[in-house]
């Protein structure tokens, strides 16, 4: 309803895909939220990629960051908390013609959704996953997240968080994801580059973007923001296909490094399943569906 006035007229088929065509609702994020920059960068990435608009699918779980798909005028939506990856993996596997992007927060991805992340990664399903990591639960108003540092004061840790946080890069490098990168929402060009490379990668690609929650964790990422006196250190002299080296890089102390930690080529689940189908069809000599099922019943006579 409210989106009616905001939607641009459709681009003619074949016309270049513009930010204007991609803009849907006005984001409901707090003014200053890091997620705005991620959204703006994503528009730019899509402008560069020039996929047909109708072939793009943006999905998300639940969280502030997960409202992302409402602001992108493509097919897609908002699944349940933590399970956007298995949903989206199926979209990718079922429809190799689509371009699948998944967005979410640190809670969505590493807490409730942590296992799906690992298993989608080891299956190497062809899609791009962007984690907007703000080290806090934003939508539910400031509880400790699995990336909140020890000592962070939240509503569930009023005297400071005590559980050791997970290390996103180490976890992702180990997961089996075939493209793993890290960026920062204030570093727009870097972010665009990382997302574009992730999108062009054939396989399961993840970008973790440090995206500040100005409401509940102000200044969390200043340490990596040169404009705030921090250091935005890029990865250098690293062989991204070396998983152990990537793991080591990921173990650097805060604020760590930015760039592509790991990149490898390994058959995607999409390709492997296509292979099974091809083999089966070879065995059945191209029989039609009716014939095939009739044959099964014949055996049961």
């Amino acid at each position, binding site marked *: 309803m409210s989106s009616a006035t905001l939607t641009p007229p459709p681009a003619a088929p074949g016309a270049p895909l513009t930010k204007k065509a991609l803009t849907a609702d006005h984001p409901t994020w707090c003014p200053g939220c890091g997620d705005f920059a991620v959204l703006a960068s994503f528009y730019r990435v899509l402008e560069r990629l020039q996929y047909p608009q109708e072939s793009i*699918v943006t999905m998300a779980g639940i969280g502030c960051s997960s409202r992302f798909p409402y602001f992108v005028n493509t097919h897609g939506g908002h699944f349940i908390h933590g399970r956007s990856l298995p949903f989206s993996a199926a979209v990718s596997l079922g429809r190799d013609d689509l371009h699948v992007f998944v967005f979410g927060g640190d809670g969505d991805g590493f807490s409730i959704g942590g296992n799906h992340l690992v298993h989608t990664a080891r299956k190497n399903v062809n899609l791009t996953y962007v984690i907007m990591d703000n080290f806090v639960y934003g939508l539910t108003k400031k509880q400790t997240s699995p990336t909140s540092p020890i000592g962070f004061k939240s509503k569930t840790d009023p005297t400071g968080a005590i559980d050791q946080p997970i290390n996103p890069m180490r976890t992702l490098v180990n997961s089996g994801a075939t493209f793993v990168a890290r960026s920062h929402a204030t570093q727009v060009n870097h972010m665009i580059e990382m997302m574009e490379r992730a999108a062009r990668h054939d396989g399961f690609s993840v970008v973790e973007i440090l995206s500040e929650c100005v409401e509940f964790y102000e200044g969390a990422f200043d340490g990596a923001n040169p404009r705030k006196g921090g250091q935005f250190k890029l990865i250098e002299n690293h062989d991204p296909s070396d998983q152990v080296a990537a793991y080591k890089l990921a173990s650097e102390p805060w604020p760590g490094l930015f760039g592509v930690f790991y990149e490898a080529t390994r058959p995607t689940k999409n390709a492997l*399943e296509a292979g099974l189908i091809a083999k089966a069809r070879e065995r059945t000599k191209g029989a039609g569906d009716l014939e095939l099922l009739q044959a099964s019943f014949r055996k049961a006579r």
Partner: protein
Amino acid sequence: MARGGTDCDTAPHYPHQITPVSIMVSSSSEPLTDGAPAASVPRSLQDVVIRLAGNSQDGIQTIGGFLARLAGRSDQDVMTYMTIPATISGGPSIFQVRMGTGEILSAGDQADLLVAFYQESYASHIGFLRPGGVLIYDSDHVKIDADDHRFTPVGIPITGRTVEAVGGSSKDKGKNLFVLGLLARLFELDVAKLTGLVKDRFGGRSEDILRNAMLAFDAGYGYPSDNLRQSFFRLEAPAATEGGRPKVTLDGNTALSYGLIAAGVRYGAGYPITPWSSIMETLRTELSKYGGIFVQTEDELAAISYALGFSYAGHLAVTGSSGPGLSLKMEALGWGTMAEIPLIVINVQRGGPSTGMPTNVEQSDLLQALYGSHGDTPRVVLAPKNVEECFYVALEAARIARKFSTPVIILSDQGLSSRIEAFDEPELEKLMVDPKLNLSERGLDFKPYPLDRITKHATPGSRIASGKYPTVTGLEHDEMGHPSGNSAMHQKMNEKRREKLKALAAELPLPEVYGDAEGDVLLVGWGSTWGPVREAVGRLRAGGAKVGQLHLMHLNPMPLGIDAIFRRYRHVLVVEMNDPGIYGFGQMAMLLRAQLAMPHIASVAKTDGLTFKVNEIVVGVNKRVDLNREGARA
């Protein structure tokens, strides 16, 4: 005790076989049998119930399966029943085959023939043999009660003869095939077909295995049983088979899997759990032939998420599980209802709650199917009544899921999942549904959630003429699928989701009542209680009562007009395998009482993890209703 070796030990010669159609059993005493017989008048049976009792390692499931397949191939009706030990390393296990020319409705309350491999098998199952029935026991293992004259015992050194036939090396493997041979001879089964089945099964493996199998079979077939055969079982020539379609014999899970394929379902996801697993195994194996994909996921939450993703991507998909796994799917299933995504969810029910009784049968997940998710989630729930309907229910589920853009739950059960029945091969030419993506451009006025019509999603990949792409979400939303916090919109969308189920209800045919169209008792059932209930109706009517049966496949919404039927009976008793709960009503009885507020609806319910015996229903009815006194009053 054992009768030991006898005269004729030569290689068997197979007479020209006729297909057994009706089986005459006489129980007159003959020299070949132990002890004294009980009743001795030969009597004609419409069907025969054979129970094989041993351990799960003995391969009795295998020969039971052969018998069932054979019966199906011979245009007989057949139904099997088996128990699987819950422990991992095997244990006591049975396989029961009932076959005959009439319609076989249940696996049988009593056996006509019991084959007992061990002392434990004898002890546990002799009570199941009908008085006058025949007991074949392995005289190398079993010592029977010589004073029990209710049955006709036949001791055969099954173990010894098998080892002898096959050679010492293979221990006692092959006892099952020895017994199969014996039964083939006794019932004059079609040996050509039977050995064909054996070869199909063992032919793929090493030469040795097949040879040993055939040696054991021949030994059983050749075992001198002519006296027994001629006196106990008289086999008649088959009636002319009707011109109809050939029979197929399948278990319920396979039938359901094939039904999904016929319905055009090509994608799915699941996680293993007994007794659901074999559906996912079949689909994982079969779907690639059809160009589809079945994904084994990390858990059930992922499984339903994948299935919803496939469906959203335009491929009506299936997921399934049994009890515990269904509980895990409830959040995502609620999303499916909210986002109005077509989906098929199979629940092969087993004994609950929690891990419960994984290898037993129960119908205790009905209320969960309807109310397992938070919020108001109108659900379509179907249940097949037998193996044949496992096939057709999948077609109906897919039809409804597509037409009403909604998840549909199919409640099968452990009993149906593994039992084998024969039924007419479906007319696939007419039934097959071609799965197709609709990627056409959607018009300027496209809205996925119009308030005045049933939702039809635009498959990703479809251009939207207005340039305004729709979203799917679990938040309450407006007609474009965008989140809306508007109170009135929530109420309207709740209505939209509810009213489409009413539209479905209005198009459902009212099932026909079997038996008396009015009178004393209407027995209402759903799912696999159909067969035993039908037989119980027969018995009760034979006793003079006016009894009807109403069986529901559409559990929610129900077809319209049930109230009128209910009013024609003094009692409505719902027969189901679940707990009558704190207020005394089983789960379906609860739903019917809530809907209709008719106090004459009551329950015949139990949860012992076993299929209803016909007699249990008859007794249950008589306990609740004094048919005689009432009959007198009427």
